[in-house]
């Protein structure tokens, strides 16, 4: 902070006491920390400049050089919590701009204490009218903020990737150069070939390497750009779901509508009499009638009677030869399979 900052109460300057910290409260007048301790020992009191009642808890460190700006930002933050409509909430840009100006006027009025009663009334009215929208908007970020976030994230990802890549590439290159040089010296020392031809071949080799390298360096950088969103603009990953708070209903396939068909039972025997006719055919004579408690649960004697008849008649036409044949066939084929397996 600057040296010429002065506490209005005790006249201490930043120059004389570098540890001095100025604090501001809701009224926008500054006080140094020790004055705050002294004056507001009880927890509350009046501002020495404007006599407006203040609480000690509300004192904060002054951020800006001009305490009025601190106050304004404070008020602004409070107001913008309520007045948080977005451009999407308005049919035209013009209306949105009008709304913005209205908000600005309210803040301006609050900061300079112009018509406090009217302004507070306006705020209350607004609060009542727009409760839903305010609530809703609190939970979602505006388009712009999201854009910014995305940009930041992309930058971060890019940075970390690229930094590693290039450092490694450079190291690798240095190593190779070193190696090539050592190889050349070794060759010159131990080989019997003409020194000129060795040097020439070395120059050729390094030139070829140099040609290759830029390509290699260019390749990964073009490939690594990972996009954090789909082409439609929806985020990949958790964040996208979080901000949209909207789960799509699973889409139904366009199949033909289900149509009920009565099931056909294959009794493999003579058809049993229908359940409604059992009473007429006098089948109940031989079984116990259902008592009151059983009827209450929906049970009738017809049910058990029908079941017994179905069981008695089902499968009467069954002929064992046919099924036996198929069974034999099946075992044959399986043995063949195993044979095949062994031969292969």
């Amino acid at each position: 902070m600057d040296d010429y900052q002065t506490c209005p109460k005790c006249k201490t300057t930043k120059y004389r006491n570098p540890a001095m910290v100025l604090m501001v409260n809701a009224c926008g007048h500054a006080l140094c920390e020790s004055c705050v301790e002294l004056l507001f020992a009880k927890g509350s009191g009046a501002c020495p400049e404007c006599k407006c009642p203040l609480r000690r808890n509300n004192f904060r460190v002054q951020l800006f050089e001009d305490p009025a700006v601190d106050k304004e930002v404070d008020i602004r933050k409070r107001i913008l919590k309520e007045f948080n409509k977005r451009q999407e909430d308005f049919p035209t840009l013009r209306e949105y701009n009008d709304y913005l100006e209205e908000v600005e006027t309210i803040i301006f009025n609050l900061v300079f204490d112009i018509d406090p009663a009217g302004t507070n009334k306006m705020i209350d009215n607004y609060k009542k009218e727009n409760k839903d929208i305010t609530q809703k908007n609190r939970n979602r970020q505006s388009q712009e903020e999201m854009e910014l976030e995305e940009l930041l994230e992309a930058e971060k990802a890019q940075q970390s990737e690229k930094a590693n890549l290039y450092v490694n590439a450079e190291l690798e290159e240095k190593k190779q150069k070193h190696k090539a040089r050592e190889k050349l010296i070794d060759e010159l020392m131990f080989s019997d070939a003409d020194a000129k031809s060795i040097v020439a071949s070395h120059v050729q080799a390094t030139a070829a390497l140099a040609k290759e390298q830029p390509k290699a360096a260019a390749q990964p950088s073009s490939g690594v750009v990972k996009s954090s969103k789909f082409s439609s603009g929806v985020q990949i990953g958790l964040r996208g779901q979080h901000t949209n708070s909207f789960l799509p209903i699973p889409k139904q396939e366009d199949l033909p509508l289900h149509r009920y068909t009565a099931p056909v039972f294959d009794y493999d025997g003579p058809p049993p009499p229908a359940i409604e006719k059992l009473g007429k055919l006098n089948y109940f004579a031989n079984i116990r009638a259902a008592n009151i408690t059983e009827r209450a649960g929906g049970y009738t004697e017809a049910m058990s009677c029908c079941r017994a008849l179905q069981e008695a008649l089902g499968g009467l036409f069954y002929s064992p030869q046919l099924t036996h044949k198929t069974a034999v066939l099946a075992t044959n084929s399986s043995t063949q399979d195993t044979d095949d397996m062994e031969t292969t």
Partner: protein
Amino acid sequence: MLELKRALDAKGHCLLEMPSGTGKTTTLLSLIVAYMKAHPLDLTKLVYCSRTVPEIEKVMEELRKLMNYYEKEMGMEQNILGLALSSRKNLCIHPSVSKEREGKVVDGRCYSLTASFVRARHAADDAVPICEFYEGFDAHGKEFPLPPGVYNLDDLKEYGQTKRWCPYFLARHTITHANIVVYSYHYLLDPKIAEVVSKEISKSSVVVFDEAHNIDNVCIDSMSVKITKRLLDKCSNSITILETTISNMKENDSKRLEKEYKRLVEGLRDATIARETDMALVNPVLPSEILEEAVPGTIRTAEHFVAFLKRVVEYIKTRLRVQHVVQESPAGFLRDIHTKVCIDRKPLRFTAERLASLIRTLEISDLTDFSPLVTVSHFATLVSTYTKGFTIIIEPFEDRAPTVSNPILYFSCLDSSIAIKPVFNRFQTVVITSGTLSPLDMYPKILDFHPVIMTSFTMTLARPCILPMIVSKGNDQVAMSSRYETREDTAVIRNYGNLLVEVAAAVPDGIVCFFTSYLYLETIVSSWYDQGIIDQLQRHKLLFIETQDAAETSLALINYIKACDNGRGAVLLSVARGKVSEGIDFDHHLGRAVLMFGIPYVYTQSRILRARLEYLRDQFQIRENDFLTFDAMRHAAQCLGRCMRGKTDYGIMVLADKRFSRADKRSKLPKWIQEHLKDTNCNLSTEECVQICKRWLRQMAQPFSREDQLGISLLTLEQLQSEEMQKKIQQRAQGV
């Protein structure tokens, strides 16, 4: 010419390296003028951009010669209008305003005399001063176009004096229908100025950037903003001025504010912006779709906007209160400003435009006070518009003085292609040319464009008039190098000194030496004093030293020229990248030898440079070392080129560093120097170097007449038309 013609035919951009002093300007002018005459529909205008005022004057001289020649040969008046444009400072003829020294003050005073509201006030009240020259121009000048001819700055002033018209606005007005316009880079590259001055130049124009080896730095500078603590304090002051003016106006003349407000509500663009005198404030590049949108409601009324500005300034102040270096991207900055002071991106984007509108409404005539605030508003607009290619660096102190708190916020452009892109897109042919553009392939990469032609030309010379040599060791066989590890070594410094002394003894007239930095220059000179080298040197020649102070340097230069002219001989010690290395020619006896002590690498610890290198690496796949070497070599070549300004000139070029002989450095020198750099001259010691110099100077000292050049580097018309020569030219054309 062939290559240039091809580029013009193809309507594409080209990149030409032509050695200095071989008639680069004449070639460009004569071909393009001829092309304009032959295809008046395809090519309507030539925009010739140069760097400094003397260079602009030189171009105008060449153009005048060409026009005189046309007249003599064709025997009639040519219907071509060429003119030079410079700032008000160079063109003003108002008796008191033109006395001001500083360009900004002249602009401000001019504005206070010619702004539309001042003139309106004058109409109501005669006591309000206005500029009679502008009034004259406004009343009569617009109907009568300038008669065809070539006008340099002085001609314009004279013409203005006789007619009583303002030459500056006359020139600005004439740009639209002139055939040839010569002005500085900034009128085209700086988006803030280009918007106003060069807006109406048609697409079918040729744009030539001369001396364009530093074009990428110009582009970057035009988009970068530097904010210091003092600037912010000034901003706070101007905000208070704004506040009081607004409250005054509210009491006296609230209608005007209401009118402005209504206009902003309607989302109409300012109609008055077209008025030429109100141009002092202009917004930096904004995509046009944003410009068509209405100003957001948060900053629509004047008071709200001032409060908004106050918050922005206070916020930046808090950011400057850092203890360590901070580097962040524009996106990070936007998020932080949103959380700290609740400022959204959109109103930020409109800051510059809104401020301009407010100042116009308030009728503030003295603009010089508001330039800090304008800078901040540009910063706000740029930071919210571009999220890529820029970085924000906040340094709490300078690297050299870490105890003195001097916080600076750099908003630095990393991508030189952003500023120049509109130029490439708008004009059909852009020619980038210089004496030293090697290595050519770097420029398309960093400027992000696709040239149709990219060539480096050499000189045809009757005698070997340049002698490049690489001196790598002293007589004691100690390697000479300005490498960081060895630069303080006394042996290296002594060897450099001996080299200079021996060369000074052998070479007549002027010698220019270039060091890598002011710091290095000073340390070397101080140890030369101790070693007695300075005394030895002064036995042969006088010694002059370039300093960071411009006035001192120009005084040294004047005396250097005097010492060379009267035969005493002089040595000038200067710095690569300094003033001397960029704009001043040492032709003939002023520079018989150039010595380059060390490789002029940039200060690599600078954070801005590092950020830029990183960006180049990530975006364009240019490796850090490649770019650094490229940058160092182009500056070295630029220094060496200082001594060669024509075919009759001759000069020695000594590269005194061991590292120059490496292939990666040597191959980056311009072709016309490389051609003369023999393998045998690549690893010399001081003694060998001096021997070669002596032999070569003896050869050069032979009388050299025009006849010697004929047939080789100078052709008569018959020779040019001879079959043999035609064949040769054909061959060359196919070869390149």
